[in-house]
C-alpha cells in the first residue's frame, strides 16, 4: 500500500529555441513512490492538459536506462541524486512528501534548448560522425572468435561502450566539457583490433569536432564520472590524451 505524496515542482518553460524561458511552479499531490521520475512528469502533464495548459516537453524513449534520451537536471544534479541511475530509472521513493524539486534542461551552449526541457544534442552526433566508427568491408559477419582480443582490452572497451550519449557529463561539468563522452567513444573503438587501424585519425578528428561544437575545456573535476548513469571512469579521458599525443608524434 502506498500513500500519495505531494511534490512541489519548479520546471523550466521555454516555448521555442529563441524565446525567453522562465520557471513555472506547480504542486502535484497524487505522486506515489512506485512511479519513476518520468511517470511523475506524465501525471503532471495529465493535470496540465486537464487544465487546458500546454504539456511540459521532456525527452525520453526506452524508460529503462539504456537509450540515453532522458537527461533532466534535477535539483542541480544531472539525472538526479542516485548513483549510476538515469532519471527514467529514478523512482519517487527517493523523495518524500512535501519535497521541492527543480527541473532544468542540461545547460550548455552546444546543447541549445528546443522546447522546455528538450535540448538539441546533435553536437554529439557530429562528434561521432567525425570519427566514431570503424570502416569495414560489408558482407557476412565474421565469426566472433576469429580475432583474439586480450580480456583486459575487451573489458575496457566494453566499459566505455556502455556510454549511452545522454549528455549528463556535459550537463554536470562546471566547464560544460564533452571530454567524457568523446573519450568513451574514442576509447571503446581504439582498444579493439577493428578500431585500432583508424586510431590516430579518429582521436584527432573527434577532439577537433568536440572543440568546434563549443564545449568547454576539461579541468579534471570528475563530476562527469560521478553523474554518469553508466559510471564511465574519467580514465577514458586520460586514455584519449595518451592517444592524442601518440597520434601527433607518429604524424
Amino acid at each position, binding site marked *: 500500500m502506498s500513500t500519495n505524496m505531494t511534490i512541489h515542482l519548479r520546471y523550466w518553460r521555454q516555448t521555442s529555441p529563441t524565446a525567453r524561458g522562465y520557471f513555472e511552479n506547480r504542486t502535484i499531490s497524487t505522486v506515489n513512490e512506485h512511479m519513476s521520475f518520468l511517470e511523475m512528469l506524465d501525471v503532471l502533464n495529465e493535470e496540465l492538459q486537464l487544465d487546458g495548459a500546454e504539456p511540459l516537453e521532456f525527452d525520453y524513449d526506452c524508460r529503462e536506462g539504456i537509450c540515453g534520451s532522458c537527461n533532466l537536471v534535477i*535539483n542541480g544534479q544531472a539525472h538526479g541524486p542516485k548513483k549510476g541511475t538515469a532519471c527514467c530509472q529514478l523512482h519517487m521513493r527517493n523523495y518524500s512528501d512535501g519535497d521541492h524539486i527543480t527541473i532544468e534542461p542540461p545547460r550548455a551552449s552546444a546543447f541549445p534548448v528546443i522546447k522546455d526541457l528538450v535540448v538539441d544534442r546533435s553536437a554529439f552526433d557530429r562528434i561521432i560522425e567525425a570519427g566514431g566508427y570503424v570502416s569495414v568491408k560489408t558482407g557476412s559477419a565474421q565469426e566472433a572468435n576469429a580475432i583474439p582480443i586480450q580480456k583486459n582490452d575487451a573489458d575496457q572497451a566494453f566499459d566505455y561502450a556502455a556510454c549511452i550519449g545522454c549528455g549528463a557529463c556535459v550537463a554536470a561539468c562546471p566547464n*560544460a566539457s564533452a571530454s567524457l563522452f568523446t573519450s568513451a567513444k574514442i576509447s571503446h573503438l581504439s582498444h579493439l583490433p577493428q578500431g585500432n587501424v583508424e586510431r590516430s585519425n579518429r582521436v584527432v578528428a573527434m577532439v577537433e569536432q568536440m572543440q568546434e561544437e563549443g564545449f568547454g575545456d576539461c579541468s579534471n573535476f570528475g563530476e562527469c564520472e560521478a553523474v554518469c548513469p553508466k559510471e564511465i571512469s574519467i*580514465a577514458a579521458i586520460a586514455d584519449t590524451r595518451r592517444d*592524442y*599525443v601518440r597520434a601527433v608524434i607518429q604524424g
Partner: protein
Amino acid sequence: MPTIIKALQSQVGRKLMTGITGIALMLFLVVHLAGNYAIFASAEAFNIYTKTLESLGILLYMAEAGLLFFVLYHSFLGISIWLGKRKARSAGYEVYKSRGGVSRQNLASRSMILSGLTILIFLVVHIWSFKFGETEMIMSADGEPMRDLRQLVIDSFTTWYIALGYVVVLSLITLHLFHGAWSAFTSLGVTNKNNTQAFKFGAYIFTIVLMLGFIFIPVYIFATGGMGSLIAY
C-alpha cells in the same frame, strides 16, 4: 595529422601544457624550498647561496626566462579555460549541486582561478620585494662583498603583516596544489582507474610536506622575532 601549433591549441594540447607547466613549476618549488632552508644552515649560507645564484649570469637569466615562460603559459591557459567555460555555458543553472562520490569538485578545484590569480599577483610583489629589494652590502668571511638578503628576509618576516600575508598566500598555493598536483598527472594521461587513488594520495602528501616547509619559515621568524635558535648567527 595536426601541426604542433594546432595540437597545442586543441583542448587536449591545452590540458597537456597546463599539466606540464604545472609540474615544472612544482619542481621549481622544491628547488626554491631547498634554497630557503639555507637560512638555517649557517650565518653566511643564505647570502652565499643567493650570491652564487646571481653569479651564474647567463645561466640564471635562462632559468628565469624559462620560469617566466612557464608561469605565463600556465596563467594564460588557466584564464583562457575559465573564460571558455563561461562561453560554453552561456545560460547557467538556477540550482547546481555536485553529486559527490567520485567527483573531485571541491573548494580547491572550484577556486583554481582565484587562487591562481592571487598567486600571480603575489609573484610580482614577491620578486619585487626580495629579488629587487633594498639590501645592505656586507663582507663575507672571505672578504667578498655580498647583499645581505638574509637580513632582508628576517626583517620582512618579523613585520606582522608581511608574515601574515605570506602565510595567507602560501595557504592559497596549498589549496591550488590540492587540485593541481593530482590533476597535472591526469592531464598527462598517466593516471588510470587503478592508480588514480595512489596519485591523489601522493599529490596530497607532496603538497602538505612542501607547503608546510614553506610556511614554517615566516611563522618561525615571526614567532621568534628573528632571534630563534635555528637561525645561525
